[in-house]
């Protein structure tokens, strides 16, 4: 199958036990636990394997470029600022696109490369997850949802980008940015003020969104 060729999942053992019984309601990875390993293909053609980034902070940013909440952070330049600032400090930043073909935000590699150029987006890479496997592995619910993994491979943050659950860019200057806070604290060896928040935005447009 195409999806297994581009995507292989090495699930952390306890998660695997849950997933064997009920694949879609398995216990989602929790903050404080090892982040489930994955490898995925990016729009630049390369394959990225999470385990290769031990020793670095890794950010996963779920993305749908048509979603009003994603657009809030891209059209204002907020997301690109975060990407530039933190990748310059050695953070590995993966934009993850889990929109299924035919849904909002689905991108071919070429279209995504053009979009990133146009928007001056600066993640390490944009992972193409049209199967939704990586999204489901992390139980990603919204765009933009953020997961942060520390150099030991432990998930230290899961949730919203900031504390204003709106699609209005004028709210950004008055928002507390959880990504900024979490990475600043974690790099300084301090505990995080917030480690699990309600992610806000559009639902991730998975192939199996059956309503």
């Amino acid at each position, binding site marked *: 199958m195409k999806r297994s060729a581009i995507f292989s999942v090495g699930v952390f053992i306890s998660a695997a036990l849950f997933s064997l019984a009920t694949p879609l309601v398995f216990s989602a990875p929790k903050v404080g636990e090892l982040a489930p390993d994955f490898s995925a293909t990016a729009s630049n053609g390369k394959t990225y394997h999470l385990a290769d980034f031990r020793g670095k902070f890794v950010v996963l940013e779920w993305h749908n470029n048509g979603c009003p909440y994603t657009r809030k952070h891209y059209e204002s330049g907020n997301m690109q600022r975060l990407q530039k600032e933190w990748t310059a400090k050695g953070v590995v930043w993966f934009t993850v696109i889990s929109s299924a073909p035919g849904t909002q935000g689905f991108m071919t590699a070429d279209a995504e490369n053009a979009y990133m150029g146009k928007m001056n987006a600066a993640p390490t890479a944009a992972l193409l997850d049209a199967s939704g496997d990586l999204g489901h592995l992390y*139980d990603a619910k919204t765009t933009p949802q953020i997961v942060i993994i520390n150099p030991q491979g432990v998930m230290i943050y899961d949730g919203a980008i900031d504390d204003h659950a709106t699609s209005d860019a004028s709210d950004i200057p008055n928002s507390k940015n959880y990504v900024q806070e979490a990475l600043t604290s974690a790099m300084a060896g301090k505990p995080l003020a917030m480690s699990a928040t309600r992610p806000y935005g559009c639902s991730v447009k998975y192939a199996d969104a059956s309503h």
Partner: protein
Amino acid sequence: MQRNAVSMMDARLRIDVDRFSARVAGSIFSPAVATLALAIFLLLSGSATSAQSAHIPHGTLELISENSAITPGHDFTIGLEFKMEHGWHIYWENPGDSGEPPHVTWQLPKGLTAGEIKWPAPRKMGASTIVNYVYDGDVLLMAPIRVGADYSASTPDKIEAAVKFLICSDQMCMPGKAQVSLAAPAKAQGGQDAGTAAIFAAARARLPKPAPPNWKVSGHKEKDSFVIDIQAGQPISQGYFFPLNESQIDNSAPQVAASLPTGLRLTLRKSGELTKPIGILKGVLELPSGEAYLLNVPIKFAGPQ
């Protein structure tokens, strides 16, 4: 319930005539002619409130009133009527795992104040891992309007609402923004508007009711869940609990309902986002009959001994 096509046309026509009368009043026609035209028109239309439906992505939005005129000292109800194309939805007060409820900013004449929106019971919608609480089809979001005893007609005598919302299908989400208004003249007597009565009655029937006085509702915490018991004096076979607050229960976890000899027990998985203990779990319990009740469930730390 749908408003009939004739009254919808009336509403649009009234707007046009109002505009016409305003324009001609300041131009070649005498104010008397304009007033006469308006009077004849109002007589023909049979109702004094006028509204205009706004086009929104994949639907329409209209501000409607339960009363045909504003009477000083008499509160009344207005409503934002969303009509959505099949496959599209907006969100409840607690949207669930994603989405955002509509936000309304009222612009009211002096002497009027708007109360909180009355949210009808939502519909649970979702795939296995993302669950939302939504409205689809037609929904009326009602708001009470308090009218001061000294209210007098002002110019413009108009109730306006700036509405922002998110509208989604399974495949995509779009931002919605609309400015809707309603002209409602002050009158000594303003009775129910026959054209909207059925819509308001249907919307009221969808509002959650206070829990019956003979119900006893209690809850306790277990390791990963909240267990709530509803003692209603008779067995209840099923029920679904819509949490009013975010990040308290896991929306996508299956709710376990167990019928009790005198009620219902629901086991709800705690949200992974819950960081502080909660004393009260607020929500709407929907029964298989479609009846919905507001519950404030006090949560004890330990189970019943």
